[in-house]
């Protein structure tokens, strides 16, 4: 077997002068250093986090809306289901939820597939510590390429985040629905609207203004909760910052450096602060729109200012 002459394989770099990193200095060294494959993975992980937020937020809101609707329902089992969901998820610590729930969810899916796909299986699924299902039932299949495993992990993460944040959102929306002045519903009833009509046409359009402060808090917390991703095996920005910032000795890299974690975390700080600022601006505008024409102090102030 042929051993490579050097432990590290050199990759094609973006800049031609990166071929001999040990000869570089200053800006050129930095340019090469910041464009290594590892750094590209770091930059890509920002995309992962943004994508996660972009998918999770609407899904969590949908979970929350369904939760709030069922908690308001007059049909007992639905009402009970909604209230239980809100109470349990809000009560369980996030980290326990993330560690336990994801493995349980994954094993639950595999168990279902196992029952459906491998009827002839004669061994127990639980063997001591091991959870053993037939090869065909594995999720994703053991033969699937790495990106399928990563996508599956990512979707599990989205689902878990959505369930957790959905419960909080449900509570916020539930409260907001009750905050809409009773007089509004009474008027709808006086016009002869059914319960369903007054819910969709009167209650829902008006409740957002009460829900938004609570929902915007949730959004901010969600932004900062993304490091929990690594518990689920998704390599997020905090993982890469820690990995890249760690001390690198010349034996194992072309770009040795000391403990630079502070600088990487500083970059993350700037990213998070910037992201929070943008969110605040956007949420402020949304609030202004929602307040327009509402029977709230904010709506009244807007009306006076316009008059």
């Amino acid at each position, binding site marked *: *077997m042929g*051993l490579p002459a050097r*432990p*590290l*394989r050199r*990759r094609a770099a973006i800049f031609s002068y990166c071929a001999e990193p040990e000869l570089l200095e200053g800006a050129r060294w930095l340019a090469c250093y910041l464009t*290594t*494959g*590892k750094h*590209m*993975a770091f930059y890509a992980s920002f995309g992962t986090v943004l994508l996660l937020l972009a998918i999770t937020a609407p899904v969590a809101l949908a979970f929350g809306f369904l939760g709030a609707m069922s908690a308001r329902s007059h049909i007992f089992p639905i009402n009970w289901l909604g209230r239980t969901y809100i109470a349990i998820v809000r009560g369980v610590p996030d980290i326990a939820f993330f*560690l336990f729930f994801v*493995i349980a969810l*994954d*094993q639950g899916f*595999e168990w279902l597939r196992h029952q459906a796909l491998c009827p002839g299986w004669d061994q127990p699924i639980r*063997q*001591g*510590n*091991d*959870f*053993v*299902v037939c*090869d*065909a039932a*594995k999720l994703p*299949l*053991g*033969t699937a*390429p*790495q990106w399928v*495993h990563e996508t599956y992990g990512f979707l599990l993460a989205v689902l878990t985040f959505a369930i957790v944040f959905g419960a909080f959102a449900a509570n916020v929306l539930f409260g907001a629905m009750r905050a809409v002045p009773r007089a509004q519903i009474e008027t709808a009833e006086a016009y002869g609207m059914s319960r369903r009509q007054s819910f969709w046409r009167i209650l829902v359009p008006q409740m957002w203004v009460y829900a938004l402060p609570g929902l915007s808090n949730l959004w901010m917390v969600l932004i900062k909760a993304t490091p929990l991703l*690594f*518990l689920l*095996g998704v*390599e997020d920005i905090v993982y890469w910052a*820690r*990995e890249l910032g*760690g*001390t690198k*000795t*010349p*034996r*194992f*890299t*072309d*770009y*040795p450096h000391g*403990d630079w*974690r502070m600088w990487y975390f500083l970059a993350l700080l700037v990213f998070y602060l910037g992201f929070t600022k943008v969110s605040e601006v956007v949420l402020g505008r949304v609030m202004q729109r929602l307040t327009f024409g509402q029977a709230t102090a904010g709506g009244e102030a807007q009306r006076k200012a316009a008059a």
Partner: protein
Amino acid sequence: MKLFLTGTAVLALTASLAMAASHSETVRLGTEGAYPPFNFLNDAGEVDGFEREVGDELCARAELTCEWVTNEWDSIIPNLVSGNYDAIIAGMSITDEREEVIDFTQNYTQPDPSSYLGMAGTEIDPAGAVIAAQAGTIQAAHIAEIGATLLEFANPEETIGAVRDGEADAVLADKSFLTPYAEESAELDFVAEDILLGGGIGMGFRESDAELRAKFDAAIQSMKEDGSLNALIEKWDVGETF
């Protein structure tokens, strides 16, 4: 029609079973990717190091297709047991405690001495000092046993950081991991006698996966016999040869 449907169903089922059988030779290897020279991420962001080369060679010899996966050290055993990957190859020493949960192959490194790395010019008595170690390692267990103050960290890098910050008097870890730090940093040096812990490093498998473990065990044996394992041990400087 009914016969036709059953026939198709049977065909589809056999096809998928056959596919599962022919592809089930893909093995997912789980590693930490943060413990040079055993395993680390290189500049290109790929798993590299002694175990990368050993693992690739073992897979070639066992005629398996292997895929590398990184996982946090803390949850590396639970994720193996729940089936997220098929083997652990992460500088994991063979100990009785771990044998209760997973099964190991024979060792592919000699028991590597563990060393205390501290600030150069100091000398410490381990039993009365504050020692940093990675959580869930044999070194952490040893510190707890001798009654010293143990500071546990989730990854190896943070244990070195704790010594630099003065939070810990020394860090206890595998000598092959600490040597590059001692050589390349003027402020760090070994500060106490080396100790021998563990039974060498082996690959970990689920207890229900005896067949796969046997394949790797045989491949390790063949690498020991033809000297290729020794060549890699010398190249990466991970302790004594066999």
